[in-house]
């Protein structure tokens, strides 16, 4: 009894499966070939000409198309799918039909001047490692900042952070910071025999005390007034002329280079030289001549 019912159950299950698949199965003599990468199906079965003539052409073609499309869709659905932004997408394989290219494959480019030079010198390309922010140093800095904020004092210089590679500047800065971090702010710290005094330390601006030497203050104020009053410009003529000459030279060399680059080297050199000398002379004379009048004008305006 039990055996019969099992058989019945199995048979029923098979029937159900068949019913389900009936809607999507298609019977074909020859299996059709697919190229899913291109979404193409090749049906090589012979077409029954009689059937084609009996039926209406379009209906026959339509049913044939429906069968073939069903097989193609079945094949596509066998491939893996994934969900991309709320849309189900099927991953297609590479196309298998060989189709001609539209242009021939690219030729290898000739090496550039730098590439040739590098090859000649044996220079290899070195990849620069991206500088990554050191987490420990960051922690240290933030800790000190918090302390400073809590106690309302300035952040002291962080001497040495535990990183792998220390550069000389980092080490020297660390040494200087350490030296200053004594009770008397490094005033009585001895220096090593050959050690140089640290540069760029100390106060960045110096101010005179409010109540200091009265006579020196008076002298300074009077000098300032005298300078403002004088008709002569506070212009060091020599220095100004030299500066102008330097600028002119620079301009000429830039112009020469540009001209030489564009036209060619032959004529450019001569013209550049001649022009440079003439121009320089003119400029100098002009500068000297202009100096005092320009200064006078400026003083008048003020």
């Amino acid at each position, binding site marked *: 009894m039990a055996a019969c019912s099992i058989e019945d159950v199995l048979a029923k299950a098979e029937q159900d499966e068949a*019913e*389900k*698949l009936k*809607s*999507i199965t298609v019977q074909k003599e020859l299996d059709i070939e697919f190229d899913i*990468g*291109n*979404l*193409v*199906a*090749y*049906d*090589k*079965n*012979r*077409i029954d*000409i009689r059937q*084609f003539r009996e039926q209406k*052409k*379009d209906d026959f*073609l*339509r049913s*044939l*198309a*429906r069968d*073939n*499309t*069903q097989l*193609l*869709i*079945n094949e*596509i*659905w066998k491939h893996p*799918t*994934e969900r*991309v932004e709320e*849309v*189900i*997408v*099927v*991953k*297609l394989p590479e*196309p298998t*039909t*060989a*189709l*001609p*290219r*539209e*242009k*021939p*494959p*690219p*030729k290898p480019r000739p090496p550039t001047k730098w590439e040739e030079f590098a090859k000649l010198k044996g220079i290899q390309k070195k990849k620069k490692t991206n500088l990554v922010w050191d987490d420990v140093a960051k922690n240290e800095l933030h800790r000190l900042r918090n302390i400073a904020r809590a106690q309302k004092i300035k952040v002291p210089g962080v001497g040495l952070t535990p990183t792998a590679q220390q550069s000389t500047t980092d080490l020297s800065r660390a040494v200087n910071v350490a030296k200053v971090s004594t009770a008397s702010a490094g005033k009585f710290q001895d220096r090593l025999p050959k050690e140089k005094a640290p540069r760029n330390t100390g106060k960045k601006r110096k101010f005179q005390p409010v109540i200091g030497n009265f006579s020196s203050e008076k002298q300074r104020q009077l000098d300032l007034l005298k300078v403002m009053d004088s008709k002569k410009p506070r212009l060091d003529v020599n220095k100004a002329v030299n500066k102008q000459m330097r600028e002119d030279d620079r301009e000429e060399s830039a112009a020469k280079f540009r001209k030489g680059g564009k036209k060619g080297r032959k004529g450019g050199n001569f013209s550049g030289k001649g022009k440079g000398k003439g121009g320089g002379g003119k400029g100098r004379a002009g500068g000297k001549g202009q100096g005092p009048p320009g200064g006078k004008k400026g003083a008048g305006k003020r």
Partner: protein
Amino acid sequence: LPWAKPKTKRAKRFLDNRAPKLTENVKNAMIMKGGNTSMTVTQALKDIYALKKPSAVLYKKKNITRPFEDSTSLEFFSKKTDSSLFLFGSHNKKRPNNLIFGRLFDFHVLDMIELGIEKYNSLSDIKSSKCPEGTKPMLVFAGDAFDHENEHKCLKSLLTDFFRGPVVPSVRLAGLEHVLHFTALEGKIYMRSYRSLLKKSGCRTPRIELEEIGPSFDFILRRTHLASDDLYKTAHKQPKALKPKKKKNISHDTFGTKFGRLHMQKQDLAKLQTRKMKGLRKRRGPAAAAVVAGETSLKTTEVE
């Protein structure tokens, strides 16, 4: 076309896009009219342009050339618009409602096939909702002619190239709407365009129902101009960089089984380390010989 070196980055990018590349762009098609065209031909060209948009250009003016005799004008146009496919429509008494499908390799004609339209229903004739522009169509080729006859094989390759659209790594399942069906029967080629409706079936794979939308053509195969085998070979050559890299010492069977190879150094079988059996060690003296004899028999039985 010899032109000066690009002066702006934008121009350089434009030219690099058109230069030969490892993985190529979608093939552009130029659709043009010949010296004389009929209503059928003009409407057919417009419909095919609609199918091939946006990678197609439709020329409005007539071009008085004959592709089968002189292809210089075609080559010039292809260089201008960077197109490697063309569709040339014309009409005359000898060849009414003529369409020439063709493709170019390196801006020279590779092959072209002339099809005559015997019956035509345009997009506007068939009243139904159309597929959106740019949908990648599914192509089906039916009929054994596409497998046996040389010209049909070439036509199959040409039509695939023409209509397949961009090559994509994945496709939205719901977007598989457009089907182009080509049937080769008795020297004629029937082209039908359907919209596929995915209906519920009992299982995961849907059931297909088709609804005719697009243009339908009954073509008859006329002249063909195929390239020489050498030219086909050159055109099909893929650059080596595109080939998938082979892993050494791994091979696949016809059944799909994966095989690997191990390379071992030469082993001295006499010094092979097997299980140690103290009793089987060599002993000295005549007494040993008897013992050994007895023990070798033991050994053999163990092996068995």
